[in-house]
């Protein structure tokens, strides 16, 4: 928006051949201050829209968490706090280098600015690499969003809980008439996924902690005794009855993926923008007089950081 005016309009170039109108100042602005103020104002308004966009997901999160705390607790156990915390640190540092890059641009420190932007870009790369590791682990364990949620891991976990709490699940299953009717046909289609095992710290990627059947504070262990056992969807098909928590653990992972994927998308967009200003900075387009693009990209990057600051405790530290 504050790029050099490229319009083919010969007419307006002629009209605007002011000696005091710098090349980077768009034709419709009178002063650099006006241009910079406009740009920042537009950016902040846009950041407001970003906040509201994430607001929708935060709303879904808040309502589900309030209504199904147990399910969220079960789900979050499968997220790696360590990776989450490392990612937070990576983003914070890249945010710092970005802020420093803006300062460098303001002070005409061109090579420092380029270096800092490169570091920020690397920070973004690091974040995405870690996210990829986490995502891969989730998908491997059938903990993807929506149709990719087959949840053998969670069923096993609940199974373990059920065993410690007694064998109520079987009694329960027999008690439900619907189960008997659907049993044989569904059991036939049951297709246990071989190779998916109970998550343990050895088998799982870093931080896929094997949750010992530890109940969260105020968590009623017996409530989980009826979860039964089974594999993924077929668990439901085979048992006919289910509990709130299993279904909502599925929703937890949907919300988790929704939030982190939208955030990840913003990281990618931010990285592309950083690359863009990095190249322009290398060409020496910015100066103490004109550095609005660096400033704006910085604002965007900080917003990405800001959102992660909230996502981290909400998703990883329930």
């Amino acid at each position, binding site marked *: 928006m504050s790029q050099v005016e490229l319009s083919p309009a010969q007419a307006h170039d002629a009209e605007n051949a002011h000696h005091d109108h710098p090349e980077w100042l768009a034709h419709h602005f009178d002063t650099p201050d006006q241009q910079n103020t406009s740009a920042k104002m537009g950016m902040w308004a846009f950041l407001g829209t970003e*906040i*509201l966009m994430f607001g929708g997901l935060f709303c879904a999160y808040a309502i589900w968490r309030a209504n199904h705390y147990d399910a969220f607790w079960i789900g979050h156990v499968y997220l790696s706090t360590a990776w989450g915390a490392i990612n937070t640190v990576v983003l914070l*540092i890249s945010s710092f280098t970005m802020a420093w890059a803006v300062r460098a641009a303001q002070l005409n420190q061109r090579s420092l600015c380029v270096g800092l932007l490169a570091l920020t870009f690397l920070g973004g790369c690091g974040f995405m690499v870690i996210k990829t590791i986490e995502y891969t682990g989730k998908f491997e364990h059938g903990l993807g969003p929506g149709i990719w949620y087959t949840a053998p891991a969670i069923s096993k976990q609940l199974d373990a809980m059920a065993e410690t709490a007694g064998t109520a699940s079987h009694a329960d299953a027999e008690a439900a008439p619907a189960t008997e009717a*659907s049993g044989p046909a569904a059991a036939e289609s049951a297709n246990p996924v071989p190779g998916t095992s109970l998550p343990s710290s050895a088998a799982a990627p870093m931080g896929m902690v094997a949750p010992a059947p530890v109940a969260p504070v105020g968590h009623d262990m017996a409530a989980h005794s009826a979860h039964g056992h089974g594999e993924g969807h077929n668990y439901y*098909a085979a048992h006919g009855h289910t509990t709130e928590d299993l279904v909502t653990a599925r929703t937890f992972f949907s919300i988790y993926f929704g939030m982190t994927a939208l955030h990840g998308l913003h990281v990618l967009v931010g990285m592309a923008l950083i690359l863009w200003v990095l190249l322009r900075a290398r060409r020496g387009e910015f100066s103490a007089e004109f550095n609005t693009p660096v400033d704006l990209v910085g604002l965007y990057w900080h917003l990405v*950081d800001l959102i992660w600051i909230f996502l981290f405790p909400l998703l990883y530290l329930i």
Partner: protein
Amino acid sequence: MSHSNEHAEHAAGHDHGEAHQHVVPLSLLSGILVLLLILTGLTVFTARELHFGEWNLVIAMIIACAKGTLVVLYFMHMRWEKMFNAIALITALIFVTLFISVSALDSFQYEDNINNYRAANPTRVPQAIISDAEVRAPELAAETGADHEAAPSTPAAPAKESHESGDGAAAPHAG
């Protein structure tokens, strides 16, 4: 933290007709980073090691808000920005709060209604898989293991006021 040197830098900018910009001193930026890292450690520590139940969320959110405020004020220069930009941000936050709180308020009001239904109709998950099938063609049904024939039913089940039993009217089907 001292602001003296950035004022000098700032003044230098002005001579060239520079837009009104604020240069944040490096020491301030680094200080903020350190604070942010400490707060991150704190949030992990409180969540993992201390058990205050519901209050854990409150503590985590207070820390997150503190971190966010630091980022906005210093990294994003909000301290030195025009009033409009702050208003834009605050308005956005107010409307997010409004949106979440009113939706949540309503949701909590009718949640009992949903729970009663779920207690009385526990077979809703297969139902979902079949409804996928309706839209996404039969192969998806096979893939997800949904089995239409398995649907048991007593469609004419008497209406029980309490709906305590599971064999109620809503047997799985694709609607």
